[in-house]
């Protein structure tokens, strides 16, 4: 997406901008945890499961076409310098994720891709072995790891289940048509980003149990709250909204605290809000339905009636005639592809599972249409996404 690169460019001076349109998450721990490909039906289910995860986790926001599998160049990677993400002095570039043998992922084993998603290890520079520790130098974890560039939010993705990661891999390898697109190598500092990926910066793996000091237990439906927590962590909401995918972190979900958290989208400054349930500065006053409507329809909760939205077309049903959309780069166009129950679980966690923090975030700027022209079907695709397989995809 066009805005993605511009926003990253703006953040280039900050080395640790983890995420924003970051992508990821688990779609449903309820799907069958198929880890073998014993049957073709099992494989198809795994591919579809992986597709749902990829679509609803914004992989395409960097790797091509957002959450729209029908878009040209879906997951085919960097196409032009417009899509460079400068991190400090280093140009980083989203790879081609299609199964092309020369330019895509075909050269890597499932295990290497798994190790990339779980441990952040570059498949091209990491032995094809099972990694037995998350600590560099321990077990099979390389003593001098060569990490993916920090724009890639593996730090959040790693908290997905093994089954979800394998489903993603199955989709990339078997559900996509190969596209030949050679992406220039990303640049990196001499430590290959190791200093950005210390335990102190990225938090523990696995994630600290609920509740941390930033969280509250015992309010609301706990199963739902915990499910929402897992989603908030694996979607890396806090990558922009404060603290990263680590509920122990200072300022977890409490919103932007200084201008380094700001995005510059063209002439506009946009700012990640405080997602804690503080009544004055956070989301405390919004209903779970308003939060749902934000994630599904992109509608700003404070400025949208607390009603069930019955259409996706402005002016039809309950959809506001003049919608107030959330600012770019909030990746709701991909989040909206999560199933209802996942969005409700996220709302339940934010309202009931997080401690309120008072942190007033200045309003985001934006165009007079409140970003409506950025959220046309032509730009963000349809909801629900086009059925599998699109012209970019293949079914066995």
């Amino acid at each position, binding site marked *: 997406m066009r805005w993605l690169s511009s926003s990253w460019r703006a953040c280039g001076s900050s080395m640790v901008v983890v995420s924003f349109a970051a992508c990821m998450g688990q779609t449903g721990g309820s799907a069958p945890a198929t880890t073998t490909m014993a049957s073709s039906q099992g494989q198809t289910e795994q591919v579809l499961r992986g597709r749902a995860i990829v679509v609803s986790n914004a992989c395409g926001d960097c790797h091509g076409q957002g959450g729209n599998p029908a878009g040209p160049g879906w997951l085919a990677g960097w196409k032009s310098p417009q899509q460079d993400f400068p991190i400090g002095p280093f140009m980083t570039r989203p790879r081609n994720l299609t199964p092309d043998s020369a330019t895509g992922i075909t050269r890597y084993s499932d295990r290497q891709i798994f190790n990339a998603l779980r441990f952040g290890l570059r498949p091209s520079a990491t032995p094809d072995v099972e990694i037995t520790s998350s600590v560099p130098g321990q077990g099979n974890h390389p003593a001098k790891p060569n990490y993916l560039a920090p724009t890639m939010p593996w730090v959040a993705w790693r908290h997905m289940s093994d089954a979800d990661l394998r489903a993603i891999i199955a989709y990339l390898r078997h559900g996509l048509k190969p596209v030949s697109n050679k992406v220039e190598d990303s640049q990196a500092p001499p430590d290959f980003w190791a200093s950005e990926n210390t335990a102190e910066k990225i938090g523990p793996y696995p994630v600290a149990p609920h509740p941390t000091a930033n969280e509250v237990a015992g309010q609301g439906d706990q199963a739902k709250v915990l499910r929402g927590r897992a989603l908030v962590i694996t979607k890396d909401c806090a990558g922009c909204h404060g603290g990263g995918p680590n509920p122990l972190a200072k300022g977890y979900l409490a919103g932007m605290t200084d201008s380094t958290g700001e995005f510059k989208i063209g002439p*506009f400054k946009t700012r990640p809000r405080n997602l804690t349930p503080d009544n004055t500065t956070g989301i405390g*006053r919004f*209903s779970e339905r*308003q939060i749902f409507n934000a994630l599904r329809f992109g509608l*700003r909760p*404070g*400025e*949208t*009636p*607390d009603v069930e939205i019955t259409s996706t077309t402005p002016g039809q049903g309950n959809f506001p005639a*003049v919608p*107030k959309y959330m600012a770019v780069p909030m990746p709701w166009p991909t989040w909206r592809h999560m199933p209802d129950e996942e969005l409700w679980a996220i709302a339940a966690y934010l309202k009931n599972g997080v401690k309120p923090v008072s942190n*007033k975030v200045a*309003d*985001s*700027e*934006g*165009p*007079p*249409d*409140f970003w409506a022209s950025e959220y046309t079907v032509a730009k963000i695709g349809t909801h629900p996404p086009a059925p599998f397989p699109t012209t970019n995809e293949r079914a066995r």
Partner: protein
Amino acid sequence: MTPSATLLTVLALLGSPAMLAAPDARELPEGPSRPDSDILLSPPSLANISRVPRTVEVKLTAAETKLSILPGKISDVFAYNGKLPGPTLEVREGDRVIVHFTNDLPVETTVHWHGMHLPYESDGSPFHPIPPGGKRVYTFTLRPGSAGTYWYHPHPDHKTGYQIAKGLYGAIIVRAPDDPLPATLTEKLLILSDNRFQPDGALDFPDPHSSEGLTDRENGRECAVILVNGRVMPTIDIRPGEVQRWRVINASAARIFRLAIPGQTFVQVGTDGGLFEKPVEMNEILISNSERVELLVRGSGKPGETTVLQTLPYDRYVPQTRPVDWNKPRDVLKLRYTTQPPAPPVVIPAMLRSIPAIDTTKATVRRNITLSAGLINGKTMDMSRVDVTAKLGATEIWEVENIVGMDHPFHLHGFQFQLLDRNGVPEKDRRWKDSINVPKHETARFVVRFDNHPGLWMLHCHILDHEDHGMMAILEVK
């Protein structure tokens, strides 16, 4: 913005060494007595057709007509009794008011008596629309202590902004038998508004789906041409040293006026529900939509000089739709110092009146009212839904919180209230209000007593485009 509540400072401001009013100070002439089209004219008063003592009975008709607003251009307007602004309803505390209203418009309308404490049936709310050709009699009695500046305007569902922009607004002046300000002060009525015109003089209402229409919907229809009593940049003549009493009404749909005269201060003596307890010296005065202020303005220039009343930049907007020229001051009217000899000094009392406090310890209900973009408590208005129910006779404390990044001027029908604090900072002075600006992300708390008049009352944002799109809720007092 320094409050100056003592007699001495008021006198100092007024530049008077004397402690006594000049015995010969009579009402001063309204500037040169020549036909001068750019002189600020006050609307005429409605004629009282009643012979009954303490009764004011008037006829008011709304109709389509053609008037000149821009020099040399004719505009199709709606007008009360053919005037824009409508004629002033001048009454006294204790008067019984009877208004025989006729709707000669091609559309339904109402007349809302903004700020008045009156029976529900006479409020002119959307509950009592008057069809084209229809009539309605509005009756109400003015309470002791209610002297002040109010206004009247249409309030039909979804069409208020359009009808006011077309020209339907007028002033109400309620006078007190014991007004503490010297009767010798020249009084001026300034009804502030703005409008937008096509080159031929026609009023300009953009297609609601155009970008201008969408911006109007967001910001309210804030227009480039500023009007005072329906005229562009009129002149007020003031004698050097003279003190004038200005009653100012913000009748604009969306423009918040931040009034200032370069190099001099005002003394604010009143607001929505009448005079303050004590005069306050101000460098500038913010008047949000539908608010009123009473000011004392001193002719502090030299004979023959002119100055301007300006509205200074005020950022009430969301960043998305802030006008490009929002940060430029705009001239509102010209103030011209006459060549008459300096006026004798005037004494302004340090204490204007006593305003009884509504007893907050008697408050039985505390309510939160949340304002956001087009919504009150997360909802748009539904005429069939009561949003807030209050007991007749109850004292309540309302906390009105604006949770979005645009100012929303809040108006409650039927009941004057007393502001307690803003963002937790207590108000210094007690005042009667019916309209307050709630700036972006701020909170205002007030106390109100629903002492009588059961019925359905509106509470809403007075940016008329917001109101018309449903930023309104219904209070039932029963």
